[in-house]
């Protein structure tokens, strides 16, 4: 297939052909590039890292070099079918604001994040008394880019509280979807949400 990571593969499958997509924290643009190429999606990205921006431009992608915390004010309401916030939401300062903005400019938002309640994470904290380090949370406390730590259940609570509708959710381990006690067995989660 297109060689995408499992979470990106899930997102790729969610997005319909020809959709307008904004990827917040698009990295080197791999996902939006594949979306554009294989699904004719009309894509744009925002990325803060210098080097990643160069890679995006080399791919011919339309990208904005900046941080997503400063907002999406220039985008009119509903200017995208999907706004992706995959593995970037936990790294922004104002996560709530960014999610609300994503849901303003996009019909739907796709939000992916590492699950802090993954079994091994719980194990490390409970038995070893150490901050979790897992394959989806691979950092030490002193070098992690993550500012927010949440679990699948936390995110569901958040959506309920903010009256955000969960259209579907995908709980993932390294290779596939996890259906059995996902908050315990999933490394990452991808939520498709709408207002």
């Amino acid at each position, binding site marked *: 297939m297109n060689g995408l990571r499992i979470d990106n593969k899930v997102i790729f499958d969610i997005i319909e052909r020809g959709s307008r997509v904004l990827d917040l924290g698009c990295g080197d643009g791999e996902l939006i590039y594949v979306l554009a190429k294989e699904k004719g999606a009309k894509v*744009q990205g925002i990325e803060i890292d210098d080097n990643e921006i*160069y890679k995006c*431009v*080399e791919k*011919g*992608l339309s*990208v904005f*070099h900046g941080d997503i915390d400063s907002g999406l004010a220039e985008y009119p309401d509903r200017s995208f079918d999907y706004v992706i916030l995959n593995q970037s939401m936990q790294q922004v300062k104002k996560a709530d604001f960014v999610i609300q903005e994503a849901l303003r400019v996009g019909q739907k938002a796709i939000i992916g994040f590492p699950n802090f309640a993954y079994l091994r994470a719980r194990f490390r904290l409970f038995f070893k008394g150490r901050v979790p380090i897992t394959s989806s949370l691979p950092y030490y406390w002193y070098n992690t880019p993550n500012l927010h730590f949440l679990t699948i259940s936390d995110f569901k609570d958040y959506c309920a509280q903010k009256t955000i509708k969960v259209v579907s959710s995908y709980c993932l381990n390294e290779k596939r979807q996890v259906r059995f006690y996902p908050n315990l067995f999933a490394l990452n989660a991808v939520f498709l949400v709408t207002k």
Partner: protein
Amino acid sequence: MMKKTGAGIVKTEYFTFAEPPNEMKLSSGKRLGPVTLAYEKYGKLNKNKTNAILVLHALSGDAHAAGYYEEDKDPGWWDVMIGPGKALDTDKYFVLSSNVIGGCKGSTGPSSVDPKTGKPYALGFPIITIEDMVNAQTYLLDHLGIKKLLCVIGGSMGGMQALQWVASYPERIQCAIPVATAAKHSPQQIAFDEVGRQAVMADPAWNNGNYYDTKEKPEKGLAVARMVGHITYMSDKSMEEKFSRRMKEKDYSFSFTADFEVEGYLRYRGDNFVKRFDANSYLYLTKALDYFDLSGHRLIPKGKNIGVRFLVIAFKSDWLYPSYQSQDIVRQLKASGVDATYCEINSTYGHDAFLLEAEEETRLIKHFLSKTFHGYDVARAYEI
């Protein structure tokens, strides 16, 4: 003799148009004619004339953007970017570099002879705007038979011309690359320009602009203006790296001679500038910069769909045209549904970076141009 590689040996050409009674109409309502534009060409225009790039220069620039004059050892001002295999690849593209009206580098400006009086225009030259510069360039394009440009590109004042091109003639452009520029001059930018103008006008030799036939020229005033300019083109960090507090002599002179290298540098730059630049042109061009304002819906009229693609480039340490101004351009474009990529290059050179950061600029521009020229394999967010 050294080998002159890149764009090779080049020469400036001149095109004269708007002969009376068909003078060019200016933003001020006045008319100007005949008008001459100096320009240079690099590379070959293809059969369908689809590979033309228009390069636009900054305040003190000229048409000599690349290659060498027969007698010179230094190349044009953006030679690092223009030539075979470079960002503006002359093996693929036809690069046209146009001077501006109001200047003093071969195009009609205050130092040109007014055909009505047989004397230099001096302050009789009408005030011109960036829009007027661009309108003059359309005559040149028509003369060369170029209906549509692959790209308009320029830094600083050149970036403003690029933006003006899009505002005035969007149908004639495929993509635009404004570099280190702004959609409007801020009060700080106007203030620096005014200091420069006041320095020129305070020089007794300026004589209300009438110095073309006098022995003394307003060199002191223009040099001071240029010194202020140079400070704004650098950054605190680049000045620290370049000069620090290094002295010209071992010890303080305990006088007002140039003790520090930075003083010597500014004096040298100022003195050099007056040899190649006309004081009145400095007044006219800075005024054109200050009048520039394509904010709001002036860049793209409300409800108008344009097919121009943008690559907007800013530099982190540029405090004369800070990156927020480039971001504002991009925000304006996005709000109008125009496809735009924005990149802030991490440089310590300040505003001068657009002339110096060739490697980073090349990485961005080369790909962007080639995708525009050969077509994208990916759909863009705002496909029209």
